[in-house]
């Protein structure tokens, strides 16, 4: 039998039936292509850079005259406050510090937690800012990193009225006054600060973690979490002995090499952003780059005493999240009232007691201690732990170990991204 390999005719008949014809297939292809073009709609917005020259003179938003006119109008009835998740005090689904604000000022606050990543959030509001439209936010909270610097650079943030923050003037910590990135607090007031360091789970890791090199330990292979953002790049710079703020492109290369070596050894489970915390809580990750307050909340409020947070010997990052008003905000006066509200010591204390980040109001410490003394049992223990935590009220030793992010120019940013971003991609 010499049957050549012919195609079974019944197979072909089925394959070529008209029931679901070529036209259908084209149609499906069209549907698929149509879905893809969503991304092209994104492309259609926000491509012009600085196309609208900023208004100058007395009409310029944020000028003295402009603020005088706004103050004469008074605040709007509602403030849209957009923040990061788990970053404000909560009590039975209410937010006591905001309720107190509403009671005191009769202004309503719409509080949203839309920000889980600086870059992502900035990319969302940027087209509106560029087009000179309102973003829907009166207050946003942005970390002292490259997105904030770019927004300041491009004039996307409303200059603040210096007369509308008396509490800030009276109570703010010197470290958040007149910052390097925003001289004279012309555009930003601190919300909270925090540290980026290493968190580890003592149920799985029984030796003390002290160094960035511990993040390369093959014993923890597959259980090591890294962040895929500037925190990782900055800590890698520290790991290779550079000073992040003044680092050179050669040092960036060394830091990138350090990170690549870690990646190539196969120990990293994933490059996380905000989602590192879930993986750490699920114990998929035993040791990870982490933000101080997240781990402290787990320790103090959720009984995860096996979690430890350390600043590695090489150093850590101290960042500040800043409240700012995007251009085009509809209620700037109300926004300023709310921003300044959080610089009252009792309000600042209530906030820090809950979110366990560093308060920009040093006077809050005495109040937390007083609350601890007045409380009993578990609550007293908890408040004492907050009051004595070096990551909530930093000690001078910790202050010496921490650094800020590198400020990057346009060209440098491209170079920086091309070095570091491919590490967490791919």
């Amino acid at each position: 039998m010499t049957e050549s390999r012919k195609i079974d005719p019944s197979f072909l008949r089925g394959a070529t039936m008209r029931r679901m014809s070529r036209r259908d297939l084209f149609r499906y292809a069209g549907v698929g292509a149509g879905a893809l073009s969503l991304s092209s709609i994104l492309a259609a917005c926000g491509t012009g850079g600085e196309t609208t020259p900023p208004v100058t003179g007395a009409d310029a938003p944020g000028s003295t005259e402009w603020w005088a006119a706004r103050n004469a109008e008074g605040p709007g009835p509602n403030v849209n406050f957009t923040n990061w998740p788990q970053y404000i005090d909560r009590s039975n689904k209410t937010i006591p510090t905001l309720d107190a604000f509403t009671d005191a000022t009769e202004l309503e606050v719409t509080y949203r937690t839309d920000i889980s990543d600086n870059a992502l959030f900035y990319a969302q509001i940027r087209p509106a800012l560029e087009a000179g439209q309102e973003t829907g936010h009166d207050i946003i909270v942005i970390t002292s990193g490259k997105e904030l610097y770019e927004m300041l650079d491009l004039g996307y943030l409303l200059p603040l009225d210096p007369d509308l923050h008396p509490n800030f003037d009276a109570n703010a910590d010197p470290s958040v006054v007149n910052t390097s990135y925003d001289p004279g607090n012309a555009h930003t007031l601190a919300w909270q600060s925090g540290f980026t360091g290493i968190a580890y789970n003592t149920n799985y890791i029984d030796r003390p973690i002290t160094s960035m090199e511990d993040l390369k330990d093959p014993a923890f292979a597959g259980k090591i979490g890294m962040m895929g953002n500037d925190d990782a790049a900055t800590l890698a710079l520290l790991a290779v002995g550079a000073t992040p703020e003044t680092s050179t492109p050669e040092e960036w290369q060394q830091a990138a090499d350090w990170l690549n070596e870690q990646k190539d050894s196969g120990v990293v489970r994933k490059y996380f952003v905000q989602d590192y915390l879930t993986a750490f809580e699920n114990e998929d990750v035993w040791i990870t780059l982490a933000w101080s307050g997240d781990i402290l909340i787990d320790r103090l409020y959720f009984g995860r005493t096996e979690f430890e947070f350390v600043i590695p010997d090489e150093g850590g990052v101290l960042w500040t999240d800043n409240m700012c008003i995007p251009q085009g905000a509809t209620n700037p006066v109300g926004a300023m009232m709310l921003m300044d509200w959080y610089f009252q010591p009792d309000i600042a204390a209530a906030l820090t007691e809950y979110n366990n980040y560093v308060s920009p109001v040093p006077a809050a410490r005495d109040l937390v201690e007083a609350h601890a003394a007045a409380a009993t049992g578990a609550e007293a223990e908890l408040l004492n732990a907050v009051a004595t935590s070096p990551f909530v009220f930093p000690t001078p030793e910790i202050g010496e170990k921490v650094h800020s992010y590198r400020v990057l120019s346009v060209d440098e940013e491209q170079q920086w991204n091309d070095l570091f971003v491919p590490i967490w991609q791919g």
Partner: protein
Amino acid sequence: MERPVRSDLAGVEPPEGRRGGGVGKRLAPYGLLAPAGVWQALFFIVPMFAMFTLSLSTGSSRTGYNFDWAFANYPEVIDRYGQFFLRSFRNASIVTVLGLALAYPAAYWIAFHGGRRKSTFLLLLLLPFFVSFVIRTLSWSFILSDEGFVLGTLKDIGVLPDAFQILNTTPAVIGGITYNLLPFTTLPLFVALDRIDKRLVEAASDLYASRREAFRKVVFPLSLPGVFAGGLLTFIPAMGDYVNADVLGGPGTHMIGNQIQQEFLLQRNYERASALAFILMLMMVVGAIVYARVLGTEDITT
């Protein structure tokens, strides 16, 4: 006002003044096409054009873009990110085959043995997909967690070694995409199988075909249009997916969709993102046309 376009067929004289309405008759199809045409122009052609011009521009989001026929953007992104195209292609191919293998038996059983409860079974199959895509994907990250109730239990009874992990690996990403696209794989298959005249199977057995032969020579060939449609409907979204790689992936699972998302939303290199998106789209359209040519026409019957 009613307008009897085909009134001549009904044997009714067009009313006076409509007699010279040949123009209207000729224009009617365009009028009827206009809404869809405008829709297509607004939401497909215009954005496509914007994306294409952007992909040939230079500059940065911070300083603005200049359109200057920068074709160099294309080789640059292919050089940089070609590997992600290949990875997406590989993943999407595996997803398509896996999806068809999983969906075929289910669709077959419902179509041939579902009886009066066919629609109930179909609904049961689709029910999980009433939950949001992202939530379903996130749930998998809990289910597949190293110490979660599945892997944790298997490790406790010694079936799996302690170091075993699925989450944040390539199999997790492929599994996630397969799962999420299962309805797109199943439904065309079901439609094709359900339309098969069941008497053909009886006829086959009358002609002494075994059940296996009847399936191989009758049912399967007749279901091929469904296989092709289901495959295409699975492959295209799988190729562009980025949520699964983001949630269930780890180092080395980044797909082209992730790259486009990152370029657009994180790094804001709009020109690179546009070039990538355009290449991806072109690949899909060309691929779909070739696919349809090869598998979906009568021209190749010899």
